[in-house]
């Protein structure tokens, strides 16, 4: 009994402390907070957005929350005005019904890496988009296929079977990857196409980037894809991918930056594709599966003033948080374009 009484007292004290602490926190945040903004969407951009939450609170006094439900979920949430901003790796035009009253603003820049697991082989083997499309269509089944061997002269590739790994959930990363394959392979474009999820002709699916990386990690002979940030964390081998200038390019920041030189003609709706840039000395070192990811907001928003402050901050100061998370800071031209887009929100 005495022991019980002591326990009860401890619990009461802890409870009182917790209540007091929560009051203190609420009071403190109420003092500073000029408002709160809710966002949802892409899990690809989530590490960057999460890194923004604390500085946005201290710089702007806005408390921001972000729910990484995936690009499609983000677009449907902003379309139905359930959130203040949605984030998507795929442009709005991909979704139907799409958000016709939204403004689309590119706010981060990164890429998709092609991963592999081949025991005995070194990192940074070479691959081309055409061969990758054939692998994902199940037409190239072995590592020592002449097409793959031809790209990797001097490397003795084994006869290991290739296991194709793709996302089993729908995802903006899949959009980027299939967008690239559609642009380099007419067969892929007509038979499979580009979307956040597609009817995969071959392979096994993994749930989210972690699932894909997990299967690639466990499966000798596997080839998969994930966003560059994730592939860096997962310590998996990545391919150098052939660009149209004829160079094999590593998915690193400077090469994503090289791809973003193709930023001069953003489409009217705010979408900006830099996948597979044209053959041009300017893009000699461009990583061909680089991509912008977007924030989508309603033109008429109840929180317009805070929303404008937040996005202005994100495309300027916020970019400094990018490189550590393998996001390339936006080029000046895109920032200028973004500011014009932000002005449409009221």
């Amino acid at each position, binding site marked *: 009994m005495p022991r019980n009484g002591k326990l009860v007292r401890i619990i009461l004290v802890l409870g009182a402390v917790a209540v007091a602490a929560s009051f203190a926190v609420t009071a403190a945040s109420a003092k500073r907070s000029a408002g709160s903004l809710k966002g949802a969407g892409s899990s690809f951009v989530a590490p960057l957005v999460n890194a923004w939450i604390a500085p946005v609170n201290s710089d702007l006094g806005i408390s921001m929350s972000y729910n990484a439900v995936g690009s499609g979920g983000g677009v449907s949430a902003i379309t139905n005005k359930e959130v203040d901003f949605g984030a998507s790796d795929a442009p709005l035009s991909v*979704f139907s019904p799409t958000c016709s009253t939204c403004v689309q603003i590119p706010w981060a820049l990164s890429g998709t890496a092609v991963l592999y697991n081949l025991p005995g082989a070194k990192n940074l083997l070479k691959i081309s988009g055409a061969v990758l499309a054939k692998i994902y269509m199940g037409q190239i089944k072995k590592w020592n296929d002449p097409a793959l061997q031809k790209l990797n002269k001097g490397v003795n590739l084994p006869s290991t079977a290739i296991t194709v790994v793709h996302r*089993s959930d*729908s995802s903006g990363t899949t959009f980027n990857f299939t967008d690239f394959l559609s642009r380099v392979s007419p067969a892929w474009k007509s038979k499979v*196409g580009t979307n956040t999820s597609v009817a995969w002709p071959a392979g*096994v699916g993994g749930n989210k980037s972690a699932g894909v990386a*997990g299967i690639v990690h*466990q499966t000798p002979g596997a080839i998969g894809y994930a966003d560059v940030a994730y592939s860096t964390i997962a310590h998996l081998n990545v391919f150098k991918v052939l660009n149209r200038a004829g160079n094999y390019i590593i998915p690193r920041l400077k090469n994503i930056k090289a791809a973003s030189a193709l930023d001069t003609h953003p489409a009217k709706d705010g979408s900006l594709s830099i996948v597979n840039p044209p053959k041009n000395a300017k893009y000699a070192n461009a990583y061909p599966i680089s991509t912008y990811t977007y924030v989508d907001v309603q033109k008429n928003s109840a929180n317009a003033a805070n929303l404008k402050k937040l996005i202005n901050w994100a495309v300027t100061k916020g970019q400094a948080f990018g490189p550590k998370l393998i996001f390339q800071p936006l080029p000046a031209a895109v920032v200028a374009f973004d500011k014009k887009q932000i002005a449409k929100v009221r």
Partner: protein
Amino acid sequence: MSTLDTTTDVARRPLSGRRAHLGDLLLQGAAGLAALGAVVLVGLIAYKIVQGAKLSLSTFGLGFITHVGWDPVHLSFGAGSFLFGTAITSIGALILATPLSIGIALFLTELAPGGIRGPVTALVETLAAIPSVVIGLWGILVLGPVLRDHVEPFLHSALGFIPLFGPPNSAGTGIFTAILILTIMILPIISSISRELFLSVPGELKEGALGLGTTRWEMVRGVVIPYTRGGVAAAVILGLGRALGEAIAVAQVIGAFTGISWNLFNPGNTLASMIALNYQGASSGLELSSLIYLALILLVFSIIVNIVAQLIVRRVAKRQGLAQ
């Protein structure tokens, strides 16, 4: 028999005093409201699901149920391969889990020495408390590679003449992995209910059988199993319900292949995992509606399973009543 009669007698006795009457009314009202709430909730869910599936229902009609394929780019959807995946994984898991869990329950009630009953019971029940996402992750990282490297090649070489045991899958994710994961998840449900049932068998009956000179096995077969058959059947159906609806762990290990493959080692997909994987990211209204159509099929499927279960339990109970 006599104890039962006294309880009904007490319940039937008219309540005296206003306080008791008020309490009675309150209880009746609250309990009735709770029951009504459950019914209304199921009704609303069904209504919402039919509403959401309307677009897909009017586009594809009933052909959706058997059509094999899921192509968000060309907007062609069908439930065929997921129905197949749901059926094969659930049935497979039941075939493995039923004898195993009954064995566990028998061991714990009839065979295990007193000292280890408690800990083993607790451990088996802990299995039910592991979050499905953790079991799924374990499936990818631990179980999958073991199956791929050891179990699948062995089964293929020993039983390869049966189409179910085709060439092993290189990734270790597939229908077979999903079946084993589901087995682990439904095992504690069936075994803990069966254990309770076996404990409910009157000691006199068991002792009587043993006294007549039966062996332990004959006693279990002749007394324990017949006495509890209806309840065990219900426990198995409960396990089936769990297997049908499990989404996350299956989604992690089944490999998301749209199509029908009789080789258990190939990837597949189920209704529940398809919905879980794609619901948040559906890129078109028609795809979203088709996913809800899948949910409708799953709902109808579960209702049918439940009705069949009720029928089985009732029949077994009836037969048991006749036998006694």
